[in-house]
């Protein structure tokens, strides 16, 4: 009984510090909104309190507006979903004019996901964002499975990865994360290629390539035929790849893929992630950031840890 009371008192005595430094981006806690599901933040901003989210990685921005893929674009799958949105986005100029001013004032760290079909396009977006106030970092998306050219093509070949990361590196002084595709034979090789080319951090995983067929129509279900699988179904795959990437590089890793609980987030951290991002899980629960943040705090208190430092990669040691 007394022991119990003592433990309770101990738990009360300190507030664990959840802040982390992700490649030079200081986050108040390790929970980010992943690029895509959160759009440009406005819609969720009306809906939920952002206070427990550390930052948002906005939907991919390309040099010119992209229309996206023909519908249907999404389908639910067991413990997940398949999507082929195709990076519909308003383009760099409209993003800077319409979205960025609103994002600047939302009190969150802001990381812009950069997409392109060619190396010049990637570099062009990075260059166009260089002078803009309020951007804390870039995430280079070389892993989207849902566009015809570019995208994943850069993320599945180490030489192409190196080239595109170098090209973007020349255009930006901002912290640069490179988002890797799981659709490769050896994630470590891709992570190292990005690190050697000047990335400040690795972000993974993007979706796993997949498809569904509508048997009533006898046709692929998605307008784009192929899509990307996300959600809890891919969590163990993502976790393994985060483990392998963290082992391969010295730069910090941002882990994501099917996180829906604080325990999932802890697993990514213990595999070697500095921070985590939530995507599909936000659809199940728009308040997921709060759930994870609270759960992480509780865990640190229970373990008597002051911060997350000692947990990063602990399962690998």
């Amino acid at each position, binding site marked *: 009984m007394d022991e119990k009371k003592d433990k309770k008192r101990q738990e009360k005595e300190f507030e664990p510090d959840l802040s982390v430094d992700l490649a030079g981006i200081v986050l108040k806690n390790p929970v980010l909104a992943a690029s895509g599901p959160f*759009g440009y933040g406005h819609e969720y901003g009306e*809906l939920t309190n952002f206070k427990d989210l550390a930052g948002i990685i906005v939907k991919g921005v390309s040099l010119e507006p992209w229309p*996206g893929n023909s*519908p249907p*674009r*999404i389908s*639910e799958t067991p413990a997940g979903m398949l999507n082929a949105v195709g990076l*519909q986005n308003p383009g760099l100029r409209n993003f800077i004019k319409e979205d960025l001013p609103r994002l600047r004032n939302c009190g969150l760290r802001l990381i812009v996901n950069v997409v392109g079909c060619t190396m010049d396009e990637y570099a062009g977006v990075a260059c166009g964002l260089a002078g803009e106030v309020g951007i804390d970092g870039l995430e280079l998306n070389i892993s989207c499975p849902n566009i015809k050219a570019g995208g994943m093509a850069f993320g599945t070949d180490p030489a192409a990865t190196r080239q595109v990361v170098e090209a973007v590196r020349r255009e930006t002084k901002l912290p640069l994360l490179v988002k890797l595709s799981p659709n490769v034979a050896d994630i470590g090789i891709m992570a190292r290629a990005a690190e050697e080319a000047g990335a400040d951090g690795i972000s993974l995983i993007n979706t796993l390539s997949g498809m569904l067929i509508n048997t009533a129509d006898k046709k692929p279900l998605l307008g784009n035929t192929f899509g990307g699988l996300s959600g809890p179904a891919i969590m163990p795959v993502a976790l393994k790849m985060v483990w392998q990437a963290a082992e391969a590089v010295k730069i910090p890793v941002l882990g994501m893929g099917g996180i829906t609980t604080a325990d999932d987030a802890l697993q990514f951290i213990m595999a070697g992630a500095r921070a985590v991002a939530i995507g599909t899980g936000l659809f*199940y*629960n728009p308040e997921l950031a709060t759930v994870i943040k609270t759960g992480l705090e509780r865990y640190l208190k229970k373990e008597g840890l002051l911060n997350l430092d000692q947990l990063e990669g602990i399962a690998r040691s």
Partner: protein
Amino acid sequence: MGPGFCRITLAAPDIASLVEPGQFVQVFMPPEHPHMLPRPFSIYKADAENGVLTILVEIKGKGSRLLADRGPGSFLKLLGPLGRGFPPPPPGSILVAGGMGIAPLAFLAESVNKPRTLLYCARTADLLVCPGADLDLPGLQIIRATDDGTTGIKGTAADLLSGQIEGAPAVFACGPRPMLTAVKEICLRWGVNAWLSLEERMACGIGACVGCVVLTIDGYKRVCRDGPVFPAEEVILDG
């Protein structure tokens, strides 16, 4: 209601007092099923005074089955009201409902007192699930039709609309895509304003994920946020 369908009534005073015909709610799955997307449902009835909403559910997949199996008194998380609904129908408007498309149109029919005609159509009698009592509204003329003639007039919604459209100031429709395509074509031909409520697979339901788009004359638009109700001349339904 018939087998495979149900009505779910939800105590949701805030939504019930705000919702307009044509808007929808996202119904989140029970907490025992944390790995399923919320399901969008058009509002079928909204009683602001008593703070209750009713949705119509066709039980055809795992999600709808889970919702239908919830007993009275159980808790469901809702998000809404969402999307853009119908504009107010002028007197003499025609409402075209195909199958489950009755849900938003029953609400629209109930929202006004002016004379209006509801064309309530389905493939077969069993799919005209809306109880007659729910449509017993003053000033509402109802014409039922089935493709196979098992109830009402034998024919499609398009057949029925073609015979009724002359002189109508506006048409409001919800139903399967081929029906909406036909409604749009007839209304354009007659020069009658028409509003169509569209259905699409959704994830976020609030316009963030861009998963539920429809092709329009201005490019892809979000069914959940820019719709679900669109002016007929804007949407390209075969795109």
